[in-house]
């Protein structure tokens, strides 16, 4: 289990499915939050599973095994954007069971996070997630999203302007 990502990727590239399973276990809990931010809570885990299946089938093409996480995030991003585009709308988790964690619950209870995120474009949600939740640099985000750092900054600026409008209340939204 002490194997690095690069080592596990090399084993998995040689056909070792247990090595790939270990990679999934290792990255699952970091990938789900990203999908949650882009496609919404209800579809997030299915989106991550689909992305990992694609990753497993294309693993032979990964030339930099140490960059596994960024590579999978890129696949996941593309699948999430496609899901949003083809009608699997960002929806709230009404009626679905949700694990309760009192420590974090209070922090997001003050906002209807999912509904507010629905007011941003999918790419803005992705850039903001990688900034706010993952704490990535602009160039890292650019690598994951397949865009340059200037576009990353532009997406983030527009996302924050939008959030300011939405969170500023009805008057600020021009309603």
């Amino acid at each position, binding site marked *: 289990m002490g194997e690095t990502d690069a080592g596990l990727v090399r084993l998995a590239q040689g056909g070792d*499915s247990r090595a*790939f*399973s*270990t990679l*999934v*276990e*290792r990255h*699952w*809990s970091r990938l*789900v*939050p*990203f999908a*949650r*931010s882009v496609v919404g809570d209800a579809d*997030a*885990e299915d989106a*991550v*599973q*689909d992305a*990992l*299946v694609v990753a*497993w*089938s294309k693993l032979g093409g990964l030339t930099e095994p140490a960059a596994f996480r960024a590579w999978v995030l890129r696949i996941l991003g593309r699948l999430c954007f496609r899901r949003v585009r083809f009608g699997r709308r960002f929806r709230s988790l009404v009626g679905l*069971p*949700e*694990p309760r*964690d009192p420590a*974090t*619950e209070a*922090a*997001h*209870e*003050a*906002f209807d*996070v*999912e509904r*507010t*995120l629905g007011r941003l474009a999918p790419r803005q949600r992705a850039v*903001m*997630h990688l900034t*706010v*939740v993952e704490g990535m640099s602009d160039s890292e985000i650019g690598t994951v999203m397949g865009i340059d750092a200037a576009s990353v900054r532009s997406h983030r600026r527009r996302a*924050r302007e939008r*959030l*300011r409008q939405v*969170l*500023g209340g009805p008057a*600020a939204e021009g309603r």
Partner: protein
Amino acid sequence: MEDERDRVSEFERAWKAWAERPARRSPQDAGRRVLEAARQRRRRTRAVRTLLATAALLVIAVTLGIRRPRPVPEPTPRAAPPLASAPLGAGQALIWLDAETPLYMTFEAPPAAPGGRP
């Protein structure tokens, strides 16, 4: 303006807390499901490929069958008209009116008329 910025920062903290809630599936369960889904996907891909290959073969076979030239029936050799090969006698002539129509003619001097000129 400052208030709005604070509100956005506050929202971003709430977003982080919301996004980082534990997933419903455990990592072990996720690993198992991913491998199972990959196996199913491989089986599906193989089935689709087989189907496509069969369809392609069928199309090729049908196309070749349609394009193959049909054998043209050879003309049956006609028997030569029996008359054509018949030997001509003295005072006989043969004229072909066309490739299939022979015309036989017999030349004969008329009989001498009684009381005719000496």
